[in-house]
């Protein structure tokens, strides 16, 4: 069988498949069906310095081939996560990427300072892009200069490799990727949800504004991964509308070192284990000795 372990920031992951932040709860919730040790790496729900309660209802809406969410980053905070949940990942020897966010630049820095290096932590994933935070959030990820500044400042307070998760809602995502790279970021997660809204025609209202995800986001994400992976020499994690192994392969071939699966888990909670198994099968059938051999294969054209 093809080899699917992946070296990421000096750590060995079993496979290149992760969950997207906020789509696998705190990890324990999936245990009745399959264990987090199946993942190449568990990505935490977006964590903040203090617990954050999130947005009022409605928080989700179905669209054709996708969904809109406006959860508003409800979370128990960094301190409680490390007390109540991190030991579970340690016990299960499951690598973790800690996704975090702040409402101000100081809060981003504060989060990065609070998270202490640990052999189980692969990277910090800085959410520069959630469309559901009113006080700032998205502002940090939209301009190259702001991205440069915040990445640089966060880098000074942590020794843990830093990933920047970028929003597609920018004029030129490659410019933002380059700014993050020049500021010293160690990798990129591309992309976050796409800002979207719903109009209720009967009530003549806008019941929800939030982030669009699911298959409808895939081609937007693929373009970002393809172009940014050619522009910057750092690992890119691809995310957006991955529903099956073919989608995962498309992201790897476009230049992603690893992939994250989000909305698909809601439709079929076994999507992640299925993708991992079928990725192995694909490599085997197509005589690839290592998953590395397909990463960025489209760049050779």
């Amino acid at each position: 069988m093809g080899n699917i372990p992946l070296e990421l920031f000096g750590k060995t992951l079993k496979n290149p498949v992760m969950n997207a932040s906020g789509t696998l709860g705190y990890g324990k919730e999936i245990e009745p069906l399959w264990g987090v040790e199946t993942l190449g790496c568990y990505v935490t729900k977006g964590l903040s310095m203090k617990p954050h309660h999130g947005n009022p209802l409605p928080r989700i809406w179905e669209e054709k081939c996708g969904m809109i969410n406006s959860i508003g980053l409800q979370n128990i905070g960094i301190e409680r996560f490390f007390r109540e949940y991190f030991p579970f990942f340690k016990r299960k020897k499951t690598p973790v990427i800690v996704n975090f966010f702040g409402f101000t630049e100081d809060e981003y820095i504060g989060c990065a300072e609070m998270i202490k290096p640990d052999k189980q932590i692969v990277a910090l994933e800085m959410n520069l892009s959630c469309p559901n935070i009113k006080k700032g959030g998205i502002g940090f990820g939209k301009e190259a200069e702001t991205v440069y500044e915040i990445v640089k400042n966060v880098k000074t307070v942590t020794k843990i490799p830093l990933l920047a998760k970028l929003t597609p809602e920018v004029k030129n995502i490659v410019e933002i990727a380059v700014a993050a790279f020049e500021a010293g970021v160690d990798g990129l997660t591309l992309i976050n949800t796409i800002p979207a809204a719903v109009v209720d025609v009967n009530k003549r209202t806008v019941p929800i504004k939030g982030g669009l995800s699911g298959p409808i986001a895939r081609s937007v994400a693929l373009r970002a991964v393809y172009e940014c992976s050619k522009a910057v020499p750092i690992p890119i994690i691809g995310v957006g509308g991955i529903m099956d192994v073919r989608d995962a392969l498309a992201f790897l071939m476009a230049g992603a070192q690893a992939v994250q699966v989000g909305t698909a888990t809601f439709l079929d909670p076994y999507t992640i284990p299925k993708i991992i198994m079928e990725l192995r099968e694909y490599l085997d059938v197509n005589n690839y000795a290592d998953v590395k051999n397909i990463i960025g294969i489209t760049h050779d054209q």
Partner: protein
Amino acid sequence: MVDTEAQIIENKNIVLDYFLLKLKLAKTMGKIMPGQFIMLKIPGNEVFLRRPFSIYDYDKDILTVMYKVVGKGTEILSKTSKDNSAFVLGPLGNGFRVNKRDVYLTVAGGIGIAGIHFLIKTLKEKASVFFGCSSNIETTLLKDITHLNPMISTLDGSYGYKGNVVEMLTNYLETVENVDQELFICGPEGMLKSLKASINKSKISCQALVEERMACGLGLCFGCVKKTIDENEPYKRVCKEGPVFDLWEISL
């Protein structure tokens, strides 16, 4: 909990927009608590997310769901023919806890009967049943529990008490005093709200089954929360911490 393939063996219109869906499961779901729910997917239709449904009845590998056509998902489901395959994830969430009491009062408003029916079947003769609906046509929904002599209210007065079920229940509660009793309720938010107001003085124990738009059903996404009175945790997940909540802990 399982995610199992199933076969639709019946999908029939009972009355008005109410349907009964019977599924034969390829794998048994094991023990089920009344009030728990499933996430249902019918492959091939244009519905993107799975839909949550209360477990109306369950026996070995036959699962029954009662639903009312209210939106796109249920409309498509109502047109799905027998023999179609389906995927059933469940049982999910925390159901009703049956504490030792002298009297169990079960209260349902309209399609709320879908959430409380399995509890009534479990409690059998120990259950007092209160059901509120629009007119006598909907009383058909109670046909397999008529032996429990349900107390029925209709808004148009065409059967039983004229008015809403909360008024009927409140009148009943005034006639009984110092009884060790517990309420189990399922119905629209307005109904829960008016019940809470009307029993605010007596603070009778009450478990309420609530519904919310859901994506995962497993507690993964935090999309289906209910507002609570707990300042430290003002939003609890309906699919994980619910769908049954202590009425006094939720904010309506």
